[in-house]
């Protein structure tokens, strides 16, 4: 079912660089009319970047885009909509206090002059679309009062109203209930039945198998495989996403041979019981979650991004309040204490999002290293912060962690990603942690720095510090952890000791298949 023998969409050799980062290295993608095409891959694989190129949010550095056989130039979302490409982002771009109908027509020029707005025709069109594709909405409802699932329908209707024939959905099921997911998939089926093409960005294999006809799997800015659903199975997909690349991964070079030494002691150092953790969308992602970490133990959490890693890390660091449950660190009840008390209690947190959660971009390295310990007596002299001593410590940290900067007065926002991470790690390790939470600690680091981080982790583990290592790099988790837990959608789907950890098995559990014990 191709138009004049052409595919609906053909992206060829798409390249995109962000400064030194090669986000897309010559990526191809082909989607047929009437097809649901899955775009799979871990975080940082380049899925969203590729789709942002298609939707005109990024300007590609190379490559061509053909739609229905003719080459198109897409410089902006307006261009994209003009050639029939619509996109639904993870965060909705809606005007909260407008009605559903007003949001749908906003910017689409529903006719009339700038001074008049006649929505009658638009209303009947929206109702028609809504009925055809099973996207039930109340046109006059105010969107901020609607649940996430319905707001997503509004977003899809926006794209359909503008005449999209290719609809991109960026991880659409993240915050939906199972019933809403079923409804969404039915709507998708109705769309492709009318000849539209749908591209589904996802990292959930089960979903992909449920709805996609074909899938392109990406890893590190390249497409590694294109598969038909009928020719594959969840195990194979998991293997491609996780396993086949094990030898190419930079960290795998470091981790080539297993020289793991367990430093775990007998006593339980950190104990989390019956945690109920709410995500930013008001959904209780974790419902009765339990976790114990022994002193000196490195506990690895393997999982695909978006399954609750950020929420878990923040809850364990005392940054995100618990809905219920309790967390004890070395016997001390931390649950309802303010974040500053957690820091004082020896909880150090290295967040995933460095720029958002971890640094003061317009402050110097010295000041960034001080963040979190500014009230401790050890940094003060006569009641004021002793900047000279702080600078001395910063000099030491910069040389110990080989931070490459023009000096300790360099602004951290101007450093490269890897050097920013070194500053953050230097701060965390200087804290003399008793619980160290690391979230994707080596992402973007070169091999030498990665090795350095692992050595530092061993150093603190020797002091009896409990380490929670949350990472999407499965090789890293397996190589560094005494114990590996697989996390899927806020629940644990398997547990392995260091010696029995096996990537394929863990990879399967990461996609939601519960380990058989």
């Amino acid at each position: 079912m191709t138009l004049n023998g052409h595919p609906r969409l053909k992206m060829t050799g798409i390249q995109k660089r962000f400064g030194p980062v090669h986000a897309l290295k010559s990526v191809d993608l082909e989607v047929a009319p009437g097809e649901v095409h899955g775009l799979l891959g871990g975080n940082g694989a380049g899925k969203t970047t590729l789709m942002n190129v298609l939707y005109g949010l990024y300007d590609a550095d190379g490559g061509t885009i053909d739609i229905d056989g003719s080459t198109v130039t897409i410089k902006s979302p307006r261009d994209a909509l003009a050639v029939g490409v619509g996109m639904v982002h993870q965060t909705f771009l809606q005007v909260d206090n407008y009605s559903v109908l007003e949001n749908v027509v906003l910017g689409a020029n529903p006719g009339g002059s700038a001074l008049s707005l006649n929505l009658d025709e638009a209303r009947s069109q929206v109702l028609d679309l809504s009925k055809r594709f099973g996207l039930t909405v109340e046109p006059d409802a105010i969107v901020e009062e609607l649940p996430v699932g319905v707001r997503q329908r509004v977003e899809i209707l926006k794209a359909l109203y503008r005449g999209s024939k290719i609809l991109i959905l960026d991880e659409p099921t993240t915050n939906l209930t199972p019933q809403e997911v079923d409804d969404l998939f039915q709507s998708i089926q109705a769309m492709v039945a009318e000849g539209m093409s749908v591209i589904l960005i996802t990292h959930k294999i089960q979903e992909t198998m449920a709805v996609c006809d074909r899938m392109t799997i990406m890893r590190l800015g390249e497409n590694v495989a294109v598969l038909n659903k009928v020719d594959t199975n969840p195990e194979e997909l998991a293997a491609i996403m996780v396993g086949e690349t094990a030898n190419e991964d930079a960290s795998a070079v470091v981790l080539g041979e297993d020289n793991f030494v367990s430093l775990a002691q007998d006593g339980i150092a950190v104990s989390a019981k019956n945690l109920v953790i709410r995500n930013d969308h008001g959904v209780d992602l974790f419902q009765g979650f339990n976790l114990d970490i022994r002193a000196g133990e490195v506990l690895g959490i393997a999982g695909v991004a978006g399954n609750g890693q950020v929420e878990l890390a923040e809850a364990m660091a005392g940054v995100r309040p618990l809905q219920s449950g309790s967390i004890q660190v070395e016997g001390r009840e931390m649950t309802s204490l303010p974040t500053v008390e957690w820091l004082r209690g020896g909880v150090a947190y290295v967040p995933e999002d460095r720029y958002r959660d971890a640094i003061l971009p317009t402050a110097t390295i010295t000041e960034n290293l001080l963040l979190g310990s500014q009230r401790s007596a050890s940094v003060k002299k006569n009641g004021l912060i002793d900047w000279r001593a702080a600078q001395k410590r910063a000099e030491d940290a910069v040389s110990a962690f080989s931070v490459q900067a023009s000096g300790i007065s360099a602004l951290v926002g101007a450093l490269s990603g890897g050097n920013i991470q070194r500053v953050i790690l230097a701060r965390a390790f200087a804290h003399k942690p008793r619980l160290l939470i690391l979230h994707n600690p080596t992402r973007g680091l070169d091999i030498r720095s990665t090795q350095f981080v692992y050595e530092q982790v061993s150093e603190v583990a020797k002091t009896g510090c409990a380490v929670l290592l949350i990472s999407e790099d499965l090789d890293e988790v397996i190589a560094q952890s005494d114990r590996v837990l697989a996390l899927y959608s806020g629940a644990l789907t398997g547990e392995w000791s260091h010696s029995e950890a096996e990537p394929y098995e863990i990879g399967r559990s990461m996609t939601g298949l519960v380990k058989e014990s």
Partner: protein
Amino acid sequence: MSNTGQLTQAESATSSQSRILKSIVSKAIPYLVAVVAAFAVGAIIIVLLGHDPVRAMQSVLTTSFKSQFGFVETMHKWVPIVLCALAFTVPLSTGKFNIGAEGQLLIGATAGVAVGIMGSDLPMVILLPAVLVAGVLGGIVWAGIAAFLLVRFQVNEILSTVLLNFVSFQVIDYVASHVWPDVGAGHPATISVGEGALLPRLGPSPAMHSGVLLVVIAAIAIAVSMRSTSAGFEMRATGANQRASLVHGIKTSRLAGAGLVIGGGIAGLAGAIEVAGVHGKMLEGMQSNFLILGIIVGLLARGNNFAVPFVAFGIAVLEVGASAMQRTAHVPIELVLIIEALILLFVLFSDVPKGRFKLGKK
């Protein structure tokens, strides 16, 4: 990656001194250019108005230094400008904009004048400190309203502080016309405060009031506190990245409120000093254009509290020169405000090519 990094480290060790010098020079250039350009544009306007630009500029720049009177006048202008600038930069360090220094100044003046009138029989050792403290508290209360609305209900502080300015005009109008009116003044003003409420003068007449000294101490104390106390560091961290500060245990929302309250206290002190040092009473219009001058100084100093007193001195010189210019060259006073605004605009413009250049390098 590691090799090039080591190279840059080695380089930086050898040339760090010349680099520091270079960075100071390269930072100063945009300011010099902005000042010269602003005066050039000002001169063109003066010519177009049909006046003598040389004589006008001479008056503007030299009046402060030609006589003791001029210098005292300049320092008296300098006091409220510094305080209003700090009332702007302290909240700015947490990322909040206090546009209410004038209201906070007026309420501070009201509180100061109230204490100064009601306690007019008290000796100076009691009354003068009480007047100044009352001024600070008045400013704190006024900014505290905006801070409470911000912390509790997330009401935008720009709106609330600006609107409270208008409320303060009504308050002083009421106090000056109904509570302690000076009926003979021909202008809404209160009666004079007691002798003991006046700041002592320093040296022979025409002498500076001792509030100048107080402000020198206050400005240093504020700048040092913002730099080197835990709370000051936390406030600056909040302004630099609120989310990261929160993750590191800083109570960012409360600090943002605290920044506004401190700013209010500083502006309130300015009000009390105006009463105790300059007017001896409260009168309508005493806020002059200190709000806008404070913001200009704060922005020119780029929020750097140590730079504020120096920038403020430059602006005070221009302000005092303005009236002399009107006398000698018949150029309207407002021209100086135009020049001040142009300096700020040109300094801000200098960021644009800099930003372009950086992007281009990437």
